């Protein structure tokens, strides 16, 4: 474990800061403990030094804990954050977790609670921050399939990526079948392989599953890697790029979609659209709505904007972001509100994959 980990403690009460410092000195990893007695001071310290963990009170004068955390989560997404408070209100707990804080903890009152608190902090400090498929830390799906095949295993891998689910059947170290995203066989395998993140489960093998894939796992993985490389665009010096279908084309095929508009962060960048004759006006409204409601969310300390849905007599609309792309999707009028929400999640997951 790293020996130079740093914790920043933020509380407006100097007596409590001293006490926390003593308590945190018991952590087995022996991190450096720094303190700040105001939100402004804490922000200044975060600007100048790299910390691994921020422990923050909620009730503070001038800048309260929610304000500090909403800034910190945006500016330092890698920083682990813990709220240590005497406020035991369910709404504040919800709002704290909605901001993406790792832990909400009532100020400990007994030795046992202090011990548990320290164990949680130690776990947070030691937690891996790298990506990968949950279940096997820091491993890509390719690594997982290779492990299964090299060890001549038989299993069924179920991979979940948002609302999308895929399955890969492995029998005695060979990939024999796959299905997912409406596809089967090799096509499904390559589609699943292109997902950048997700959750996987290893289920019992199904020896009776008919074989539809005859290629070796090495050939499949090689083809998959090539397809992923190609989808990321041609390398420099490879000549003219091949014309390719807009990625929006696939999204516009989702049931119920009437139009789709993709906006990049740069307001000067032209919007990409499908199904709209004059996308500029819709793009202007979408950008304005995103900006205004994001600002309102910050003002209310309600957490980051998740989704805007509008329902009208002619069509419905949903606005949401995936990565650095903002989407405005028009939906058929006959869809219900919950259906619009679900289908919008599917559109975003397809884009992410």
């Amino acid at each position, binding site marked *: 474990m790293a020996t130079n980990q740093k914790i920043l403690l933020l509380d407006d009460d100097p007596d409590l800061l001293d006490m926390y410092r003593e308590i945190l000195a018991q952590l087995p990893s022996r991190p450096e403990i720094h303190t700040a007695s105001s939100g402004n001071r804490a922000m200044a310290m975060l600007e100048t030094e790299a910390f691994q963990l921020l422990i923050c009170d909620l009730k503070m004068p001038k800048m309260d804990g929610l304000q500090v955390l909403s800034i910190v989560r945006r500016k330092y997404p890698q920083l682990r954050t813990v709220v240590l408070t005497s406020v035991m209100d369910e*709404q504040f707990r919800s709002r704290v977790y909605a901001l993406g804080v790792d832990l909400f903890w009532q100020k400990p009152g007994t030795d046992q609670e202090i011990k548990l608190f320290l164990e949680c902090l130690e776990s947070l400090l030691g937690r891996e921050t790298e990506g990968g498929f949950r279940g096997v830390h820091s491993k890509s799906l390719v690594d997982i399939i290779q492990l299964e095949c090299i060890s001549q295993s038989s299993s069924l891998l179920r991979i979940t990526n948002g609302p999308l689910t895929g399955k890969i059947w492995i029998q005695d170290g060979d990939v024999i079948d796959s299905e997912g995203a409406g596809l089967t066989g090799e096509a499904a395998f390559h589609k699943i392989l292109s997902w950048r993140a997700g959750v996987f489960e290893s289920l019992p093998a199904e020896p009776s599953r008919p074989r539809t894939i005859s290629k070796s796992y090495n050939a499949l993985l090689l083809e998959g890697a090539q397809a992923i490389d190609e989808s990321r665009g041609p390398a420099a010096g490879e000549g003219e790029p091949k014309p390719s279908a807009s990625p929006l084309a696939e999204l516009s095929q989702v049931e119920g979609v009437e139009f789709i508009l993709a906006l990049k962060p740069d307001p000067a960048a032209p919007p990409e659209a499908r199904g709209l004759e004059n996308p500029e006006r819709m793009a202007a409204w979408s950008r304005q709505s995103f900006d205004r409601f994001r600002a*309102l969310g910050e003002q209310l300390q309600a957490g980051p904007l998740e989704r805007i*849905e*509008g329902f009208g007599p002619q069509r419905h609309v949903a606005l949401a972001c995936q990565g650095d792309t903002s989407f405005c999707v028009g939906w058929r009028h006959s869809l219900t509100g919950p259906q619009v*929400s679900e289908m919008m999640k599917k559109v975003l997951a397809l884009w992410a994959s």
Partner: protein
Amino acid sequence: MGFLNLFSRTPGALLKLPSGSFTVDREGSVIVGTLPSNFPESLVRDIAREVLAAFRGAEAAQLPLSELVVNFPSLKITARDLRGGAVIFLSPRAIYEPAA
């Protein structure tokens, strides 16, 4: 463990997200509402302003809307068009509550 009583000190007050509704006219003035009185009026006006702007902007983009739902992780704002004004519902959401 007497020193731990220090932890029970409770300074200041945090802003709670309210549950309730209010109605605004086309100028954004609040006509009637059920929000708690300690919720700042300025925030109520800001919510109304953004909701009305969203309705009007949508209409200008030839996408007339009768209802608008804005989802934050800890708050849901539902607004219904009321002939240029709006009735706006605020519902705080719990973290374990499924997203609407």
